């Protein structure tokens, strides 16, 4: 009997193959941040010297947490809420908290996918013109007050030119999720991941063969070893691996719960973790090569054209670079925004899956109604980001959900599992029973000491920054409602879901 057939008989979804799981997990980890965040984190934190804390962070935080989430999902064969409930009866809320943070992140993540689709179209004929910043903030998003923070509460109407591509993106995400784990998520990953690598390689090859590419690579890789004495650089390294690897989202718990019993968990984590890191390293080479080209073409310093990364890099700096290229400009635009879209779509699907798994387990739903509810609710919320004030709300929600939702969820998970439940030995035995690489002191001590210390430091550091300096000069009322309010909402929602219908719960795999 095939894995899919077995899954059908037990009622629980299962991956069709282990390769399919690996590609889906890679697709989840490799997202927009690998392309537009990582290169700037390297550049701003000691250049080539940053690789040292980055590798240490991979070894002592990213891989240990990834393995722990695989072991949790695989051992309890359920989504995060049920897995934590199985571990300790009163901890279901922690799983729901992760699920709700992921759900709210998905509401704006798919909006950005819509932007990528729109920019694929705008690439034909370079429709953004010469003023790429003015086009993005004004003509495309129609942001209130021209993007000035004073327009924060000016919600305005829906932007139809944004809504159409966002709806297309939602339809694609919905269609993938509705087809299920093996026929939807896995098949998509098997097609899109190789295509994404080909597109990225095309971008990198084009980038490094442009005049000025070496200028950008020098800025990116020339090491400043003095930066290693700065605690902020180490926090940045741990923050990067934490946000980049899809950990604390409850994604990997859900994905691992769909694995067959006999699966090498530890080696899978190594392959997924190193694939993600290798991808972003390659993306950084491509991004800074073309920034070097732009600097030489405009007779500026690379540091002047580099900007700050993120949305600005993709939708303002890159269109400017594409305008300046000596040839095949439109094709380069389609390849770049297409790569962003592909990287994002597999991640978006994975961010929604934990919610679907959790709702199915809690409310005994079949897959289709669960997908309808989750996607429908997320799509409705995402309309807020399609308004004229949408950019403000997206930026604020992203900042707070990442810095306080994800980091705090991760901290709570590691502390509860390692220190309160003292489950690390049990999870070690579980992972070692099915894996060829045997976990030992490295894994245990990383999770017991290094990860809580770093995540705790990040939480305090983020709190201090947020309290002393209003983010992006947004009004306090906006930060309280859209930032802190959203984080509080996830926690309250988690506690509420923990309380409801306890007596009717069941596990779909019986």
């Amino acid at each position, binding site marked *: 009997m095939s894995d899919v057939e077995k899954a059908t008989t037990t009622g629980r979804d299962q991956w069709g193959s*282990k390769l399919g799981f690996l590609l889906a997990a890679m697709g989840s980890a490799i997202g927009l941040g690998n392309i537009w965040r990582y290169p700037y984190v390297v550049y701003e934190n000691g*250049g*080539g*010297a940053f*690789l040292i804390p980055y*590798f240490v962070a991979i070894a002592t935080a990213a891989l240990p947490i990834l393995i722990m989430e695989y072991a949790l999902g695989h051992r309890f064969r359920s989504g995060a809420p049920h897995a934590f409930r199985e571990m300790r009866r009163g901890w279901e809320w922690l799983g729901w908290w992760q699920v709700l943070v992921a759900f709210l992140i998905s509401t704006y993540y798919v909006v950005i996918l819509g932007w990528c689709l729109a920019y694929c179209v705008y690439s034909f004929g370079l429709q953004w013109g010469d003023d790429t910043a003015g086009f993005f903030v004004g003509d495309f998003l129609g942001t209130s007050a021209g993007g000035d923070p004073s327009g924060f509460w000016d919600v305005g109407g829906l932007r139809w030119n944004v809504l159409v591509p966002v709806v297309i993106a939602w339809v694609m995400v919905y269609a993938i999720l509705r087809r299920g784990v093996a026929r939807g998520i896995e098949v998509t990953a098997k097609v899109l991941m190789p295509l994404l690598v080909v597109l990225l390689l095309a971008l990198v090859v084009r980038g490094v063969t442009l*005049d*000025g590419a*070496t*200028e950008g*690579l*020098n800025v*990116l*890789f*020339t*090491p400043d070893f003095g930066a290693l004495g700065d605690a902020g650089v180490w926090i940045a390294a741990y923050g990067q691996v934490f946000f980049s690897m899809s950990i604390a989202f409850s994604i990997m718990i859900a994905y691992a719960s769909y694995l067959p019993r*006999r699966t*090498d968990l530890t*080696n*899978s984590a*190594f*392959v997924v973790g*190193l*694939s993600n*890191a*290798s991808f972003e*390293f390659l993306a950084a*080479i491509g991004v800074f090569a073309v920034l070097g080209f732009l600097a*030489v073409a405009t007779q500026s310093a690379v540091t002047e054209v580099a900007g700050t990364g993120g949305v600005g890099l993709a939708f303002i700096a890159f269109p400017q670079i594409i305008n300046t290229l000596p040839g095949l400009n439109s094709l380069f635009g389609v390849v770049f925004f297409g790569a962003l879209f592909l990287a994002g779509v597999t991640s978006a699907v994975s961010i929604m899956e934990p919610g679907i798994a959790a709702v199915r387990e809690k409310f005994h739903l079949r897959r289709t109604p669960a997908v309808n509810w989750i996607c429908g609710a997320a799509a409705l919320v995402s309309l807020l980001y399609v308004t004229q004030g949408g950019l403000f709300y997206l930026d604020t929600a992203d900042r707070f959900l990442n810095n306080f939702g994800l980091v705090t969820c991760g901290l709570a998970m590691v502390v509860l599992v390692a220190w309160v439940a003292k489950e690390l030995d049990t999870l070690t035995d579980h992972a070692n029973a099915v894996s*060829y*690489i045997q976990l030992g002191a490295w894994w245990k001590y990383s999770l017991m000491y290094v990860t809580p210390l770093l995540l705790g430091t990040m939480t305090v550091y983020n709190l201090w920054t947020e309290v002393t300096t209003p983010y992006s000069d947004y009004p306090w009322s906006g930060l309280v409602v859209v930032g802190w309010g959203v984080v509080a909402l996830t926690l309250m929602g988690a506690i509420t879901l923990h309380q409801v219908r306890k007596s009717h719960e069941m596990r779909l795999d019986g």
Partner: protein
Amino acid sequence: MRDMDTAAIVMLVFGAVFLWGGLAVAAVHYVVAARRDKG
């Protein structure tokens, strides 16, 4: 336009060897272990 600095090349190679080399080793190990498991 100048060539890449030696220090930048060293760090580029360091990163590439660690990441891509590490990935290659992990992938080969995974495949070998999977075959041994089947056998």
